[in-house]
């Protein structure tokens, strides 16, 4: 078993295979931002509390500042840049949580926004989409990320709105 200080990793990021060589101490957040130049993932505290850096690893939301880049070797990572989907005509179709954030004025400075979007997208996709969202569900989905601008009212509103957009049979 060799101990390394640098590794070449293969990661599927937003559906695209990427290979990059990183020092083993590189945080996933830094690898995404600096090595892969996906700066949509933001770093707010680097100790796992604020949630701004939340990304999906194999579909599950995690704090990318609390994961080493080498740990996602062979895995699929989704960042905010991968949330909208291609419309096949050179444009994009926003994810319902993105639509909802815009519609509900759920962002001000936008710095915490990617973390909220990723957490909310995963949370809403995982729930039973035939039912109306409850306030407890909203609190659980929104409750683990810090925002200093909005006071959260409109983020909660956006969560309800997006859940509505994502309800089975209602598109998305």
């Amino acid at each position, binding site marked *: 078993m060799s101990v390394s200080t640098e590794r070449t990793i293969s990661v599927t990021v937003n559906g695209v295979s990427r290979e990059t060589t990183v*020092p083993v*101490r*590189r945080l996933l957040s830094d690898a995404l*931002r*600096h090595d892969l*130049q*996906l*700066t*949509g*993932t*933001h*770093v*707010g*505290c*680097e*100790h796992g*509390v*604020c949630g*701004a850096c939340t990304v999906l690893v194999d579909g599950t939301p995690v704090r990318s500042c609390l994961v080493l880049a080498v740990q996602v070797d062979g895995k699929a990572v989704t*960042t*905010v*840049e991968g*949330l*909208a989907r291609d419309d096949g005509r050179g444009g*994009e179709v*926003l994810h319902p949580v*993105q639509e909802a*954030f*815009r*519609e509900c*004025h759920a*962002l*001000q*400075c*936008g*710095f*915490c*926004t*990617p973390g909220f*979007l990723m957490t909310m997208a995963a949370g809403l996709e995982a729930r039973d989409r035939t039912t109306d969202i409850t306030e407890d569900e909203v*609190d659980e989905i*929104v*409750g*683990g*990320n*810090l*925002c*200093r*601008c*909005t*006071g*959260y*009212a*409109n*983020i*909660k509103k956006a969560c309800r709105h997006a859940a509505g957009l994502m309800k089975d049979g209602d598109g998305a």
Partner: protein
Amino acid sequence: MTTKLMGEPVRRREDLRLITGRGRYTDDIGHGALAAAFVRSPYAHARITGIDVDAALDVDGVVAIYTYEDLVGPMAEPLPVLIPHPQLTAPRTGYPLARDVVQHVGEAVVMVVATDRYVAEDVCDRIAVAYEELPVVVGVDAAREAVHAVHEDVPDNVAARHHQETGDVEAALAASTHTLSFTQYIERSACMPMEGKGVHAVWNRDDSSLRVHTSTQASTSVRAAIAAKLQLSLEKVEVVAPDVGGGFGVKIVHPWPEELLVPMAAIALGQPVHWAEDRREHFISSAHERQQRQEITVGYDDGGRVTALDVRGWHDNGAYTPYGIIVPIVTATQLVGPYAIPVYRVRIDSVYTNTVIVTPYRGAGRPQGCYAMERTMDRIAQDLGLDRAEVRRRNLIGKDEFPYDHHLTFQDGRPVIYDSGDYEGLLDKLIALVGWDRAEERRAEAASRGKQLGIGMAMYVEGTGPGPYEGGHVQVLGSGKVLVSTGLTSQGQGHETAFAQIVAHELGVPIEDVEVTTGDTRRFGYAVGTFASRAAVMSGNAIALAARGVRAKALRIAAEVLEADVDDLEIDEGVVQVKGTPGTAIPLRTVAVLSNPLRYAFDEAARQATQFAGPGDDSKPPVAVGDAPGLEHVDYYSPIRSTFASGAHAAVVEIDPTTWEIEVVDYAVVHDCGNIVNPMIVEGQVHGGVAQGVGGALYERMAYDADGQLQNASFMDFLMPYASEVPDVVIDHQETPSPLNPLGLKGAGEAGVIPGTACIASAIEDAVGRRIAAMPISPTELYDLVRSPDAERVPAATTGVPA
């Protein structure tokens, strides 16, 4: 007819890039730059006796190491005192890198530049700085006792004695039927934007120019400071505030040491250099606010009307005073709020401590002033057995008393003259909104559930939109695009949207055609900055004036082309037309083309303006004397004085008398910021402010120990509220336009935070029947208070019961 835009909840044009990861914040710019990191003082007060960098030189990837010894010229001098004031008799500022003595934990001592931030931190770890510890002063009381001095040459620790009075307060107190005196405290919190500070500097060797991106609220002034400190010609320095991840005041301070040192290194090394402040750095080396001790004496009559008010305060300004005494001045002058105070004296000493500097945080001294005044109102009510709302009502400035002169001098050096307002209207709306008159019923209902319910209110007046000025540039291009720029910066307030609304409205163009740039000195070089709820008032009006200038010019040119009278023309959906004669029209984009007589036809639109394109009047020059080519206009708005917004908040709290947990169950806001450009954005500002108010009242504090170590310098222990801690907020608006500016606007950015501490303290006091004299308050402190035999009991409330 053009869609109505002013006053409408237009969706934000900033959002698309920010929700798709295409925003560009300072740390997103310039991959591959060298990274800076800092060795910061671990001691609150110490003399540097040696710096040994030998071990650091071996680290693979180290590029440069700088200490004070490496600073030359103006860089070796203290940082500027940004806002001098005659009463600031002992201003002190630090150096970009500490010289000799460090005055707080976190002060920068050594700058390291390396290939990346990881390596830069490795280098920092290997630099050994030797210190000789000096006595530490922490807290406003230790500062005023002055057993030890923060600055050797300021033995009493007093930076400034701020003093204003409107009459003989001692005589007025002596003549008052009732007087009472009390002392209270308010603790430190901080802006704590989600994005820390950041600087990215690129030196272009070829033309000796410097481009700096910085996460600032004042790019034009950062530019001037960099030019002065690095001895560069102003035109060789450009400063851009890109997307900024929140500011709330901390980024108005400048130049931060890093804003000078990073460009200095970029020039010296001939390579781009980057610094992204991490969260720990932000806690220990940016800025805090709020700590004050307040001793208040008030005189009043049998009806609870204030006859005299005397406030003695001590304001903790931290280790240095780069931002002068703005915060204590704001406290002193905004304390009086919506009330007519016949005789008022305020004396606030601004004192040094060995802690992080204190500079404006959203509210900027107003929360403290509001806390002083509103708790005074509560005490008068309690003393006289009157309803707290009623006592306030009796002291309000009447609707017909505007302009109302407080005979005080505001933070802008101008008189505190309230321009307009309807404070009784606010109070009536608040009482209805929160159900003030049903408080006793609710208290009984909560008691049946084992909870102690309390209600509190607080009112405020906020001087917004201070000068000296802001400017705006509006330009219509031949493509029909309308470019708008202003020098002040944005940190999430939606300026691009609000300013586009203003221009679209003033100019009569589709909002989609308007592009707004803020905070980029390449586009607009004259500005003051984004602070004091001034962006909409200052830049909004400047941009409106600039748009009106463009409109006038467009109408003049179109009138010639259409052979119509200017007064008969209108602009709608980007087309200049004769009113009532839709066929007689010319697109604004064509007017733009014609406004710039050309020799060369570089495209189809330009062809229309070339010299052989049509019959010209060869008796006149192509550009008339006094005119200028192009359909553009620059204008400035410079107010005679600030405009005064106002509001009233109420909080209902429930306390669990077994665990002493405090829950804000209702929060009501009535808000008056004059005419509103975009109510969606204004409500968002209120929501955010309230969350910070709740945070400041119940969760956030800077916990320094006696050695000056900040014990909670992380998001783990500095308790910024999550969604779970923020109550739902109900909002009602009142619109009392300002007569001072063309758009009738008053600022809205800070209001939400101002009354939080005051009204939540009042509500908790109402719930538990014990005097709350220090804020914030946590459950463990409330537990101490309720079982303390010394805690003052508060008479049973008579909320909502008419006197």
